[in-house]
């Protein structure tokens, strides 16, 4: 096992990794930008090193600074968290060349899965259904029109290097396809320095289902079931849950097994997630593999009782998985609400600044992962997520009720947050019936979500 792990991240995930390390008896080195110098979680680390100014490019994205910190602090492994350098194959490569363990898949696997065209190819080889589309990059509009002819409208245009909804367009006819093709390509070029796009059949109102995987370095792979992340706004997940209310046991078995086949084909190691679209008719399609721990890994932790960050550390240090697929047990229902410092009434604009009073909810079935506290100042430099509120109860209905009371208890004075929006979504009849899809939030809570006044209980 590692002796000393450097955490190349900030906020709640940095705290999350520190917690896992402490419980395993591993020393921690927390790096931070000067904007995060006051963060309380830094006190829980054995060593802290300021690596740069607030701008991410000069701190949390600055590879030489992070490697230098690891060398100075004599860390034998680096946990990248999510975001920042988590899926940067060059960073993983530099770690390797510096003889520092990168806690995640190999650089080669990250690179292969980071390219959506190559990832689709992998899924195809694994015999996993993919959304019908171009076999790889589409060079020009003529080719685009040909492909569209074959697979039929509506068509989704996607950036090969994309993510977070950028470089994505839907076209419902030929003129729209031509326009969208060029828009998507130049948007991708601007955002990722790579204008390569590909086409896919656009699945209307799908559910977002993803499967959590653990794979050790000895060929053992287990899945930990699915998460349903259909409550999204502009491709940003807001609420995640497990199990999905829309999977039958038979469908769950097929989709989880498909996920295992994909990561086996990719020679994947460590924790990862295979994402699928689930159509209304029960057919599912591979989208991509997230070659890192995800924000919502916590949902799976609740229903399986496993600590995924500890598992990452164990796997990266070369240990074998201590359990087999048949040993995994699921119980109850877990829901996560992402609490963002954003103003849902002002088109979700970030609302950083000082938290005057922070009173988290507690009691039975409630978990909070947050680095915030009364008096904490949310820096304007990073993303707006300030906490993940989770509940775990025996049934979905009980979990929703517990989440509603937890949201009501949660006091955050100062910044605006997504707490009222979550309350509204959880009271929505479509959500309560489990009958919602990835279009749900835009449909009911568009750019000016009319958050209904709280109903009497």
């Amino acid at each position, binding site marked *: 096992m590692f002796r000393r792990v450097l955490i190349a991240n900030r906020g709640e995930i940095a705290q999350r990794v520190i917690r896992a390390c402490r419980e395993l008896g591993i020393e921690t080195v927390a*790096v931070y*930008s*000067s*904007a995060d*110098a*006051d*963060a*309380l979680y*830094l*006190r*829980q*680390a*054995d*060593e*802290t*090193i*300021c*690596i*740069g*100014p607030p701008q991410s490019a000069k*701190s949390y994205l600055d590879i*030489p*600074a992070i*490697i*230098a*910190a690891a*060398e*100075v*602090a004599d860390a034998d492994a680096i946990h990248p968290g999510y975001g920042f350098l988590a899926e940067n194959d060059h960073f993983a490569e530099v770690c390797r060349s*510096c003889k520092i363990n990168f806690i995640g898949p190999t650089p080669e696997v990250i690179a292969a899965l980071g390219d959506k065209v190559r990832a689709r190819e992998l899924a195809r080889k694994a015999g996993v259904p993919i959304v019908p589309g171009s076999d790889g990059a589409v060079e020009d509009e003529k080719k685009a029109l040909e492909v569209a002819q074959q697979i039929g409208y509506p068509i989704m245009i996607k950036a090969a290097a994309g993510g977070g909804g950028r470089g994505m367009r839907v076209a419902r006819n030929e003129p729209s396809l031509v326009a969208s093709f060029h828009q998507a390509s130049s948007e991708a070029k601007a955002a990722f320095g790579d204008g390569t796009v590909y086409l896919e059949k656009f699945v209307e109102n799908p559910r977002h289902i993803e499967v959590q995987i653990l794979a050790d370095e000895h060929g053992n792979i287990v899945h930990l079931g699915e998460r349903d992340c259909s409550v999204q706004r502009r491709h940003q997940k807001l609420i995640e849950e497990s199990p999905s209310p829309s999977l039958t046991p038979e469908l769950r078995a097929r989709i989880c097994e498909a996920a295992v086949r994909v990561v086996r084909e990719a020679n994947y190691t460590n924790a990862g997630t295979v994402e699928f679209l689930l159509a209304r008719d029960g057919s599912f399609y591979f989208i991509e593999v997230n070659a890192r721990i995800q924000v919502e890994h916590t949902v799976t932790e609740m229903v399986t009782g496993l600590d995924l960050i500890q598992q990452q550390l164990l796997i990266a240090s070369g240990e074998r998985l201590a359990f087999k697929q048949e040993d995994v047990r699921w119980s109850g229902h877990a829901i996560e609400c992402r609490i963002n410092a954003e103003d849902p009434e002002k088109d979700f604009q970030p609302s950083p600044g000082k938290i*005057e009073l922070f009173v988290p909810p507690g009691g039975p079935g409630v978990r909070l992962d947050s680095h915030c506290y*009364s*008096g904490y100042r949310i820096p304007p430099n990073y993303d707006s997520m300030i906490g993940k509120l989770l509940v775990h109860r025996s049934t979905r209905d009980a979990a929703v009720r517990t989440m509603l009371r937890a949201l009501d208890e949660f006091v955050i004075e100062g910044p605006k947050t997504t707490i009222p929006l979550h309350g509204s979504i959880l009271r929505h009849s479509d959500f309560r019936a489990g009958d919602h899809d990835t279009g749900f939030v835009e449909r009911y809570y568009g750019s000016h979500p009319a958050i209904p006044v709280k109903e009497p209980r």
Partner: protein
Amino acid sequence: MDVKLIQRLIKLMKDGEVFELELEDEKAGSRLRLKRGRPEAPAVPMPMVHVMHAGAAPVPQVAAPGAAPAAPSAPEAQKPAAHKGTTISSPMVGTFYRSSSPEAEAFVRVGSRVELDRTLCIIEAMKVMNEIKSEISGEILEILVENGEPVEFGQPLFLVKTD
């Protein structure tokens, strides 16, 4: 008014939690003004994080409320307050070296004059020796880091009396 008196007044203020005291005398025309309690102050005490090479597990410790002004970003907090002069801080994390090799002379010593662009030290990061050059000119008053010590971003390295 002598220092002893001031010292005693300060102690009285401290013990009595007085945060403001005015005093006139004009040969006993007199005037006094006292304010107790907390000054306006930050609404919630900003916890001071003790950083850098904590070594053993850090014991949670927050500065007593009101005992200190809001903590600035941590490394800067370590500036020796008493000194007059300009501080040159590290622009990166790495290992601090005073000379280009163990045998070579130190780039600067206390008392050295430095000019714009003169090399002050080397910070090694990722096996790269980064020469740190002066952006001011003046005289080195103090060297705040030992040779071979790790430094973090923003950590003060030199104290310089500028021209």
